[in-house]
């Protein structure tokens, strides 16, 4: 009775630099578990962003590249085009993907590049100390929206999953979270599905994972889970927004 549990092989033994309770750690483990289960560690290349997760390259035990801010999808395109046999994924935060890298992610998705993106949305710039991100909520205080984000001044938060799902090119686009065990299970299923679509050479895949940032939200890790549920999830609705079959004809 009961289950065993151990660190996946694809995850290194290096303790992470992430703040206590930061859900990056959970997402890293899910990616590593999926890579172990698919047995692709030897042919996978990960691409780290610029942001808290830049040091992700220290936490995985397979080939890794570190991109310039926002450019991971372009690097992934470069790899996947010259080495389609490699499994390629980018791991990016909301500043990296939805702000400076918006051009790259939209065009990679629109070209149907056959790589996977793990997009961690925690509604703030973490590494640089809590500035407003494109995904910061209305009224949410950050170091660059000290009186709270004003949509009339800087617009509404960007919904990346919906935005990318609107593209005609077939792809797998889902939004998940990891703030509760039941959500962690679903997030892992989605991440695995994304990698499987890549292994089939089928389409571009992206899983947006709504995540916490206790330090820059100024909350305890446990309160951050609650705030995510109460404030982020109503706006960033979970679900699979696009799958290759119902997204028009399959990518050839």
């Amino acid at each position, binding site marked *: 009775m009961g289950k065993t549990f151990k660190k996946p092989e694809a995850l290194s033994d290096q303790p992470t630099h992430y703040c206590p309770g930061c859900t990056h750690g959970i997402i890293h483990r899910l990616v590593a578990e999926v890579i172990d289960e698919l047995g692709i560690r030897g042919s996978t290349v990960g691409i780290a962003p610029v942001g808290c997760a830049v040091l992700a*390259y220290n936490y995985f035990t397979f080939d890794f590249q570190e991109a310039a801010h926002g450019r991971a999808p372009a690097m992934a395109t470069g790899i996947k085009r010259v080495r389609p046999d490699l499994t390629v994924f980018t791991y990016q935060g909301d500043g990296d993907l939805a702000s400076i890298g918006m051009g790259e992610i939209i065009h990679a998705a629109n070209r149907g590049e056959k790589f996977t993106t793990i997009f961690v949305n925690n509604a703030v710039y973490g590494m640089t100390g809590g500035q407003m991100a494109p995904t910061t909520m209305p009224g949410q205080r950050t170091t660059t929206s000290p009186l709270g984000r004003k949509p009339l001044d800087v617009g509404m938060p960007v919904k990346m999953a919906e935005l990318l799902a609107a593209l005609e090119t077939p792809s797998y686009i889902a939004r998940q979270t990891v703030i509760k065990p039941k959500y962690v299970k679903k997030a892992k299923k989605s991440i695995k599905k994304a990698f499987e679509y890549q292994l089939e050479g089928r389409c571009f895949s992206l899983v947006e994972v709504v995540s916490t940032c206790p330090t820059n939200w100024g909350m305890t890790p446990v309160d951050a889970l609650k705030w995510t549920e109460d404030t982020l999830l109503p706006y960033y609705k979970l679900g699979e927004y696009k799958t290759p079959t119902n997204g028009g004809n399959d990518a050839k």
Partner: protein
Amino acid sequence: MGKVLMKGNEAIAEAAIRAGCLNYFAYPITPQSEVAEYLAKRMPEVDGVFLQGESEVAVGYMIFGASACGARVMTTSSSPGVSLMGEAISYITAAQCPAVFVNIMRGGPGLGGILPSQADYFQATKGGGHGDYRLLVMAPASVQEAVEMMMEAFPLAEKYRNPVMLVGDGLIGQMMEPVEFPDNLSIPATNKDAWATNGMDTRKSDKRNLVKTLYLNPEELNAHNLLLKAKYERMKQEAVKYEPYNLDSAYQVLIVSYGTMSRVCKTAIDMLKDEGIEVGMVRPQTLFPFPEQAIFEAAACESCKVALSVEMSMGQMIEDVERCIKGRLPVKWHGKCGGDVPTPEEVIDAVKRLIAEY
């Protein structure tokens, strides 16, 4: 294949394939879009990769990703586009990844013009991106030389694990000249298993590779910069290329000029010679490493009173020429930057004015 009449841009494209570069990412920009148009047809014929990116910024990183996983790769662009690739070039150099960049220069700054220019000299040799880095920069003066330099660029990039940049001006890209390709010289790519992220299975190794440029520890970053600098010093010892012209005469003026501009100067020198006026020239074929020693020695010639840097820019290479001559001679500039190439007659007038003055 024998001699073929070919447009510079297309010859550069074909040369890349002949050099075993089967991966091309680019963005259209006058005056070099023909490279992409040519390779869009040609790459499928050789099972190569052709992709038009959404911007030169993205293209710069497609090059980085592809190179970092061990592929031989190149891109071509023009001045404003190369500005956008500046950050990626800095990253690729820091990561010690080989890659070939071609800049078919056009008039600047800003949107500038689409006619030939050499106004990206600083950008190419002094760093268009951030941080201490250098590129091995080659400057062809003809379509034939562009082909030969392209085919040298790939092995040089891999030898130094550093990007190589070929700078031609709009003319090199646009004009047609007879070209002869070395017969299918496909320079074998070097083994990159030691550093490339080409997949652990590919290398049959369980040691993973990491290509990154972040060094938060100051000692590590300093050591990394010293390692890169050592490469540039090696380039200075091993990779300098220049062409002397009429230096065995008793020349009164020493011209330093490269690319298309140097061909115009050759014509001017020949015409002056007929008038009994001797002018010598050093033509840098590599802009970095710069032919410092050659220019320093050429300036020592007894009969020579003045040096003249002839550039299609407002005077950028002149700073290096002055640096190398170390005060032995006054160094003057002559050039134009609107995109119309100075004529031999204009160069002759400039030379005669100098002779009168000095």
